[in-house]
């Protein structure tokens, strides 16, 4: 089984402890209902581990079947350029059931971001290359649907619920403890 081919780097959006012993990477699609269902689970897991876990979200939009997924990813990147990636990330998932381009502009407004700049960025596809790079990195790592998680570079095959993720991360943290 392929592992994560693209290591966490400067272009990634990171939450939790930057130097945490364990890293969880998610490949997700803002219009995918399974990712929407995973969102509160991941939030709770991040809350549970705090600085002991590093979390990275990468884009994997299946835009042919999810017509707003690519735009939503570019809007999140736009917000990221203004230090609001995670706020936008959360707002998009929390409003996933009514995702639309006008809604994405309203979310940008709610975060105090310029709608004019956002319109320009989307028209000029400023963030399309970053989204595509995430997608291709995912493909090369064997991502075949969303959400796909990697725990310390290894594909996570378990259930996407709180107990299973916490147990898997606890196991990794225990393995990372220096043995006396």
């Amino acid at each position: 089984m392929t592992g994560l081919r693209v290591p966490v780097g400067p272009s990634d959006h990171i939450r939790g402890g930057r130097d945490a012993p364990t890293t969880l990477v998610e490949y997700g699609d803002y219009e995918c209902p399974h990712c929407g269902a995973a969102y509160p689970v991941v939030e709770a897991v991040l809350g549970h581990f705090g600085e002991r876990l590093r979390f990275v979200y990468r884009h994997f939009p299946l835009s042919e079947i999810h017509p707003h997924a690519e735009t939503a990813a570019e809007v999140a990147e736009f917000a990221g350029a203004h230090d609001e990636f995670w706020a936008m990330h959360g707002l998009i998932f929390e409003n996933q059931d009514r995702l639309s381009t006008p809604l994405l502009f309203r979310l940008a407004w709610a975060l105090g971001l310029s709608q004019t700049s956002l319109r320009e960025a989307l028209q000029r596809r400023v963030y399309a290359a970053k989204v595509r790079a995430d997608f291709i990195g995912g493909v090369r790592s064997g991502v075949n649907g969303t959400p796909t998680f990697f725990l310390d570079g290894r594909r996570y095959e378990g259930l996407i619920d709180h107990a299973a993720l916490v147990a898997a991360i606890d196991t990794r943290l225990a393995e990372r403890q220096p043995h006396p």
Partner: protein
Amino acid sequence: MGQILTAGTRAPEFTLRVTPDQDLSLSDLRGSPIILAFYPADWSPVCGDQMTLYNEIRPEFQKHGAEILGISVDGVWCHQAFARHNRIHFPLLADFEPKGGVAKRYGAYREGDGVCERALFILDRAGVIAWAYLSPIAVNPGADGILDALENLSNRGEKQ
């Protein structure tokens, strides 16, 4: 489970229906690397994901000059509805009559179930199998293996 054809074998020629009024022959595409993706059925969840994924990745395949063909035992009308529903832009071939005839020649037919295996073949520009992969039937194999194989083909000097 049978044995699928392996790398180094000349890919058996075939002609199959691709739309209600069009045929496609493997030899029509000679000169380009070809990805043959045998899959069990239109509409089943894993296949849908797999073909949807290839649809999105197709530009990467095309960077290598490669075209992808999906093949199942579904008929042309079924393929047409499936392709429209999922906005699939590459050809889906109907290995429908005789049922699974092409899949059998590639060793990619499941006799008991009457469907194709989930099997991938990459053919080089001369029509020889360069890479073959049989996936567990319930597992979407993704595209990492395909892209690695296409890169190996390009590195082998296929570009000339």
